[in-house]
């Protein structure tokens, strides 16, 4: 007869069999049996956050920078509700997370017991799936299935709710593998046919104004996907643009790369998307920040869409060729087939796309990311550029919060490798970057990890500095401090007659002293001429650092597609700001 294990032991046995090395969590009454068991499992390290949201974002940062699922352990009631923001964030950005939550004992469920909440009810719309475990003999099957669901197909978060009595009860343990009855979201079920590949290749050959539009799906598919993407782009000689989440899949400093597209994307990328005759979407989802007005989106193009999630295809934009596939699989077969018949395509096709490239160069000449620099005050764009120049020689990982600084980071920091850029895109969660940096640093010890932050965002999860100090994680919090919620202020300037309603933060803390009180290092830069030295100092310190970069308070993030304008009419800079129509103001 097999040895019976307690529910808590089964939890750890499952985590061990899933090769989990780190759990991010916070203890509480309903998970105490699991925490009690922690001491017996030396291969698993627990990282104690200061708030369950922080633990969740750390697990996300860990997952995104390592390619492995992040594991989160929280208690019932407020522990679970605090994790909801992180779960929703992971759901929107397709990040594999396994959240284990404690629950009140089964006999108390439904009685409004202390720290009881309907966790599976609350998290149902923000997880791929969740389970309430009512029998300890189901526990190992459910936990292994949870890992499978989180990492299969389009990745995402899952939650397993374990009542306290189940954690004590003894039951059987078994390692279940591949128990999923069907492969979720099409991964591995869809064999790519040669006829699909030939249609794809024909569209490539016919096009004279092509563009690759790539997204987070390339990153999620693993580092091989980025390798194949680079090969395909070089084989075709076509221009490529990327979404916010896709940055790093293709080198940011390559001449074929047009920069990011979308609301704050480059002039050349957005115009190329609008005017192209072939759009090749690989692992992106035609999000509303990309398409703008759907009816006027890229009117003259044939569109190819490769996505692992069938429900992403045709949701926002109708396409001409839809392929449900993992990006790596598709690119591998496509490149193989393409090379068989099209030797030296990039050269022989050069003539056909030469006019298109000329046009793109004209758009490029606008230099849409330019800004008026100053020698008295630090411009936020300049700060990001200097940070890039001073860190590009080493393998640097960047996380961000949400707002202007996030867009400036995306525009001015050039990424050359996948999994180096962690930002909250779908949900747009202020407070994401600091805890995410903790997870990234844990997955990548010895590497430089910088959170490019805004002072408003970073205060939402500032307590996690304490976590960074406890585990000696030398993360760098690079705050572009303009004392405003910058993106809110920008929209109020452009859309609400400069009525800066509640977007200024009075009584900000002194970030240098705050750093010292946490036991880390604070640095402040106030002028452009001291910036380089201070950044170098920050990099050289082997401790967590809060860098208070005092920047221009009134700077706006350009280029921008304003409300009330079609997609190919961007505002390039402050000189071009014009009245936005009343109708435009009601839109988000």
């Amino acid at each position: 007869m097999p040895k019976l294990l307690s529910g808590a032991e089964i939890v750890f046995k499952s985590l061990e069999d899933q090769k989990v090395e780190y759990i991010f969590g916070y203890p509480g009454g309903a998970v105490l049996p699991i925490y009690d068991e922690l001491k017996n499992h030396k291969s698993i390290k627990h990282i104690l956050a200061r708030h369950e949201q922080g633990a969740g974002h750390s697990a996300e940062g860990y997952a995104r920078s390592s390619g492995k699922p992040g594991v989160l352990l929280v208690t019932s009631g407020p522990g679970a509700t605090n994790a909801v923001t992180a779960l929703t964030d992971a759901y929107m950005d397709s990040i594999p997370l396994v959240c284990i939550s404690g629950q009140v004992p089964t006999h108390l469920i439904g009685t409004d017991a202390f720290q009881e909440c309907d966790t599976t009810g609350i998290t149902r719309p923000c997880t791929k799936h969740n389970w309430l475990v009512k029998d300890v003999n189901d526990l190992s099957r459910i936990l292994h299935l949870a890992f499978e669901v989180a990492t299969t197909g389009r990745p995402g978060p899952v939650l397993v709710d374990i009542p306290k009595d189940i954690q004590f009860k003894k039951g059987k343990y078994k390692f279940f593998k591949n128990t999923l009855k069907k492969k979720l979201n099409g991964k591995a079920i869809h064999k790519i046919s040669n006829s699909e590949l030939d249609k794809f290749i024909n569209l490539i050959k016919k096009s004279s104004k092509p563009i690759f539009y790539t997204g987070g799906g390339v990153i999620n598919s693993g580092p091989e996907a980025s390798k194949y993407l680079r090969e395909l782009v070089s084989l075709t000689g076509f221009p490529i643009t990327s979404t916010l989440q896709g940055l790093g899949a293709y080198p940011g400093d390559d001449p074929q790369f047009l920069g990011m597209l979308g609301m704050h994307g480059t002039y050349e990328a957005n115009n190329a998307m609008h005017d192209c005759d072939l759009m090749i979407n690989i692992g992106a989802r035609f999000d509303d920040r990309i398409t703008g007005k759907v009816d006027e989106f890229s009117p003259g193009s044939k569109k190819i869409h490769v996505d692992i999630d069938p429900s992403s295809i045709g949701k926002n934009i109708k396409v001409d060729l839809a392929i449900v596939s993992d990006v790596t699989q598709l690119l591998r077969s496509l490149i193989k087939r393409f090379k068989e018949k099209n030797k030296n395509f990039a050269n022989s096709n050069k003539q056909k796309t030469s006019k298109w490239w000329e046009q793109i160069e004209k758009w490029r000449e606008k230099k849409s990311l330019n800004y008026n620099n100053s020698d008295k005050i630090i411009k936020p764009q300049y700060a990001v550029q200097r940070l890039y120049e001073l860190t590009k020689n080493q393998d640097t990982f960047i996380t961000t919060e949400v707002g202007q600084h996030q867009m400036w980071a995306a525009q001015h920091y050039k990424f050359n490798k996948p999994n180096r850029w962690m930002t909250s895109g779908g949900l747009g969660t202020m407070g994401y970057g600091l805890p995410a940096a903790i997870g990234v640093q844990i997955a990548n010890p010895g590497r430089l990890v910088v959170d490019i932050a805004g002072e408003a965002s970073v205060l939402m999860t500032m307590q996690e500095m304490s976590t960074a100090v406890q585990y000696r994680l030398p993360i760098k919090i690079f705050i572009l401090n303009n004392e405003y919620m910058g993106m809110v202020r920008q929209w109020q300037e452009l859309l609400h007659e400069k009525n800066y309603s509640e977007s200024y933060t009075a009584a900000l803390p002194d970030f240098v002293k705050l750093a010292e009180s946490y036991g880390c290092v604070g640095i402040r830069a106030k002028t452009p001429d001291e910036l380089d030295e201070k950044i170098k100092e920050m990099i050289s310190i082997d401790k967590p650092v809060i860098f208070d970069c005092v920047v221009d308070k009134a700077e706006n993030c350009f280029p921008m597609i304003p409300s009330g304008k079609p997609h190919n009419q961007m505002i390039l800079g402050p000189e071009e700001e014009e009245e936005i129509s009343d109708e435009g103001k009601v839109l988000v």
Partner: protein
Amino acid sequence: MAKSKSAYSVPGKIGKIERHIIVVWVDNEAGVLARIAGLFSGRGYNIESLAVAEVDKKKHISRITIVTEGTPQVIEQINLQLRKLVPVHKVADFKRTDKDILFRELALFKILANSKKQEKIKKICKKFNPVVLDKSQKSFVIQVTALRAEIDKLTLDLRRLGLISTSRTGAVAMTKGAKIFN
């Protein structure tokens, strides 16, 4: 409000609305109905009616029949989103106007009526397989099976004849002939 011209969050052209019947086979486990209903409400889809019961006691499979309305794009999304749910085994979808599909709804009516009036009511219900389930001096309960519009009409007619309570199911559906949904 003036018609907006924004590049963002402007509703596109709205396609023609169609009524569809969607049949979903699911594991009969706790919360499964909430998952299905939550998907519909969370994404703004309609549910006109919903009927559910376990159809396979051994495998614990329930069959859910949902009547919904939407543009072809929305209906496609409903299908694809349902298929992503872990407890969903298969999804069948067809138009309400499909000639090869049988639909039925069941209704119970409680009517205050003496025996003379009761005979008259039975006649009105004649086309809809009436079964009298309960009878007293002053009242009776009658069961009919019919299409939604027919039951709607019947309800109106019976209201004039002393209808005091109505209970209806959602539609259930099945293919004609030997073939089954796949």
